[in-house]
């Protein structure tokens, strides 16, 4: 069978298929196609294969693959078409070709296999390698087209060129054009194709260009090198964007962990070393919620947001009432006592739940990533956390700036005696503020449960970082915490490529230690009387 003929068939078939996009091939049509295949003499089978391939039926690939393996058969009694799954012994296990469901064993004698020969197989191979390009779903065509890059050879090039010309979807068309260009650069040294590939981020395109740049043809080599340089530029830009994204993502985690501390330490002046354990409580609340609502991780996660806030806030109130209020004005003693509380909470979790890490499920809508281009994809869970951190920050800002509570908190921290004489219940404000700060730590825990291990040591890993962020940003300043968290996260990510993760962290710590020497009150020091308090 000549290539020209099959190509013509395919082309017309494709055009037909594209024009008939909305018409879903129904079972009756499918059956009639299969019947044609079974009944046609070998010489005519090629045409039927093309018809099947171009029918746009999702099952076409299955049928043709089975046919190529000699496993497509017709039940002599019922006339139904089946795919043989297991052909050992007297009875063969088969699946219905139309529904795809396994229908049990059928005697070998009742089955009439549709014969295939070598010429047909060759044609099938060609069709099968491009059959995904003819399905109706443009997403699937795009995936297939992308996979083709780098694997096009001379047997396929004509089919693909035809398909590319017939393609309606611009993305698919671009991917196919690229695939063809890679082939042309690689096999033919085509200069126009080199130009087409410049700026492509595909790894096969780069490989083809690199090969071309080494070729003996000086003109081709120079063109390929120019294209490669352009790609290099683009890659650098993408890498910078990636680093920035990871930096902001790490930074937003730091902001989340530190923002509660910015309230309790920064605004109230209470050194709460158990802050990390309040974060841990939030994370464990998420885990507990998911245990309560099995199979609904997304709902559990959303419910964990208020629940985590409440759990941590209540724990915070308990800490404030039992310990911190007795140590007012003695910050270093508060530090020691709350450290003791953190040890107790950690051990409590170890004893009551488990010393091992718990698994918190990431809901489907949070997993996966957004692909910006081939060199840059943004993981969704981190994107959500960046958004969550910003929402929490904005919420806190609103509370501190616009509500009665915020006003009272600021009044009490600036001048406790004066605020009390104005009728503000300072003790109540203390409790509310501490509950707010602790609750926000719980929120941080809910978010962190999505990206790190939930275990008894979760809090310890964040406590030093949190203090660093608050001190670096300037105590008593929420904006400072935001800026400090984001910039420390970005600095850390910038250092990582050449220093390694651990060394980058050490360098950041040393940087903060030195920075505090220079500016003991942080990036944004408080001014005025409140600063002296």
């Amino acid at each position: 069978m000549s290539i020209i003929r099959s190509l013509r068939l395919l082309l017309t078939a494709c055009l037909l298929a594209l024009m008939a996009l909305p018409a879903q091939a129904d079972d009756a049509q499918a059956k009639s196609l299969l019947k044609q295949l079974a009944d046609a003499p070998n010489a005519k089978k090629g045409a039927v294969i093309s018809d099947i391939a171009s029918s746009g039926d999702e099952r076409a690939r299955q049928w043709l693959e089975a046919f190529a393996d000699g496993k497509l058969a017709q039940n002599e009694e019922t006339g139904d078409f089946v795919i043989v799954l297991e052909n050992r012994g007297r009875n063969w296990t088969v699946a219905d070709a139309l529904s795809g469901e396994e229908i049990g064993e059928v005697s070998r004698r009742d089955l009439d296999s549709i014969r295939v020969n070598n010429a047909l197989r060759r044609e099938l191979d060609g069709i099968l390698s491009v059959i995904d390009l003819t399905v109706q779903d443009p997403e699937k065509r795009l995936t297939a087209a992308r996979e083709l890059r780098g694997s096009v050879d001379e047997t396929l090039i004509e089919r693909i060129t035809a398909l590319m010309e017939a393609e309606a979807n611009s993305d698919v068309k671009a991917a196919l054009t690229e695939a063809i260009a890679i082939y042309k650069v690689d096999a033919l040294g085509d200069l126009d194709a080199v130009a087409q590939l410049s700026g492509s981020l595909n790894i096969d395109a780069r490989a083809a260009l690199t090969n071309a740049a080494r070729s003996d043809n000086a003109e081709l080599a120079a063109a390929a090198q120019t294209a490669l340089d352009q790609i290099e530029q683009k890659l650098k830009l993408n890498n910078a964007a990636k680093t920035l994204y990871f930096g902001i993502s790490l930074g937003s985690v730091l902001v989340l962990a530190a923002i509660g501390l910015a309230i309790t330490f920064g605004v109230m002046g209470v050194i709460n070393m158990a802050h990390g354990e309040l974060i841990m409580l939030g994370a464990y609340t998420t885990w507990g919620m998911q245990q309560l609502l099995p199979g609904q991780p997304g709902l559990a996660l959303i419910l964990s947001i208020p629940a985590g806030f409440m759990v941590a806030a209540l724990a915070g109130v308990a800490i404030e009432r039992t310990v911190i209020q007795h140590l007012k004005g003695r910050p270093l003693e508060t530090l020691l006592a709350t450290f003791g509380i953190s040890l107790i909470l950690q051990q409590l979790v170890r004893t009551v739940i488990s010393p091992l890490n718990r698994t918190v499920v990431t809901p489907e809508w949070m997993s996966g990533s957004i692909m910006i281009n081939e060199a840059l994809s943004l993981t969704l869970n981190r994107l959500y956390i960046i958004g969550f951190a910003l929402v929490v920050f904005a919420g806190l800002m609103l509370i501190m700036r616009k509500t009665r509570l915020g006003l009272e908190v600021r009044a009490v921290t600036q001048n406790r005696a004066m605020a009390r004489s104005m009728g503000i219940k300072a003790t109540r404000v203390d409790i509310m503020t501490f509950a707010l700060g602790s609750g926000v730590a719980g929120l941080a825990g809910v978010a962190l449960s999505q990206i790190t291990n939930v275990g008894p040591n979760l809090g310890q890993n964040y406590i030093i970082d949190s203090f660093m962020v608050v001190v670096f940003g300037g105590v008593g300043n929420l904006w400072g915490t935001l800026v400090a968290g984001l910039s420390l996260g970005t600095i850390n990510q910038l250092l990582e490529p050449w220093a390694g993760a651990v060394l980058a962290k050490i360098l950041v710590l040393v940087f903060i230690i030195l920075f505090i020497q220079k500016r003991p009150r942080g990036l944004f020091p408080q001014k005025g009387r409140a600063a002296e308090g």
Partner: protein
Amino acid sequence: MTQSTNYGQSWLTRPFTERSTQIFLAVLLGAVALVTFLNLTMPEDSALHVSTYTVTLMGKYLCYALLAVAVDLVWGYLGILSLGHGAFFALGGYAMGMYLMRQIGDRGVYGNPELPDFMVFLNWQELPWYWYGFDMAWFAFLMVLLAPGILAFIFGYLAFRSRVTGVYLSIITQALTFALMLAFFRNEMGFGGNNGLTDFMDILGFDLRTDGARLGLFVASGIALAIGYLICRAIVGSKLGRVSVACRDAEARTRFIGYRVERIQLFVFVVSAMLAGVAGALYVPQVGIINPSEFSPLFSIEVVVWVALGGRATLYGAVIGALIVNYAKTVFTGVMPDAWLFALGALFVLVTVFLPKGIAGLLAGLTQKKASTDKSVAGTAQEAGV
């Protein structure tokens, strides 16, 4: 006990005339002598026999006590709550560990005369420059003092010059020890990474695994504690010590009077770091290993609670606190390991809330009402809330 009356004497001899120092030295040296005697002379099956295991355990406690004294010197008398003294302790320990590593020579698993086992394992070709000299005892022992001392000097110089005090200082000392812990965990640092330095054999030609060497280390720890205590007493009793208490209680005023506050702070801080280094150096051969976990912030803050339990600004209180907590730790972790962190956590809370002056304060309240001077020192520290 009364610091004002014998103020005219030389700073060197004054500590010996104080009642509290005399009692402390008598009890300490007496206990060390008694344990040595019981260990050497009593037969193994006697009820009075002190096993070498117990001797080593007590030697370990004495090292912790020296560390606690060092912390009390800066916290009790200078008002600096260091949450990073474990770093100085560990640096002293690493200096000693490096000496002990070099003493192994070619008896290691790989039999390399130059390189310690872990370096051979990691394919190091030659000894890094900072390991030079540690085969000589005098150099290593000097480094036990200098390594923590220089770090404390640089850190203190930067911090005190820019007047970083209070909570900020506490937090950056914690960051310091945390950063060092991360650094020492790295294999590239050349200090054995995760596993640290271990498998020691000899110290000064004595086999570390013999009972004699262990007893010797115990006695050395006792003497080191006594000397460290005397040094601290001498500092505290001198004019320098009085100014440092003034810094603790009213830093700004002391500066306005004309004292160079940052120099006093720096001096006391460096001395304290060196004492911590010595404690670490004596600790390592007794436990047989030094690894980065000694740098962990938890350990440093634990030391502070020993001091808080014993009673701040008394020095002997620090020793009492260190001994009690560590004995309790040994008992607890042996009987029910899970409960230890509960107990330690509760200790932090209860001591700070209910026992602000520690055991020493309790004792002082029970036994005497007349020694008003010493009490007022401890009292002002609490009132100042530093």
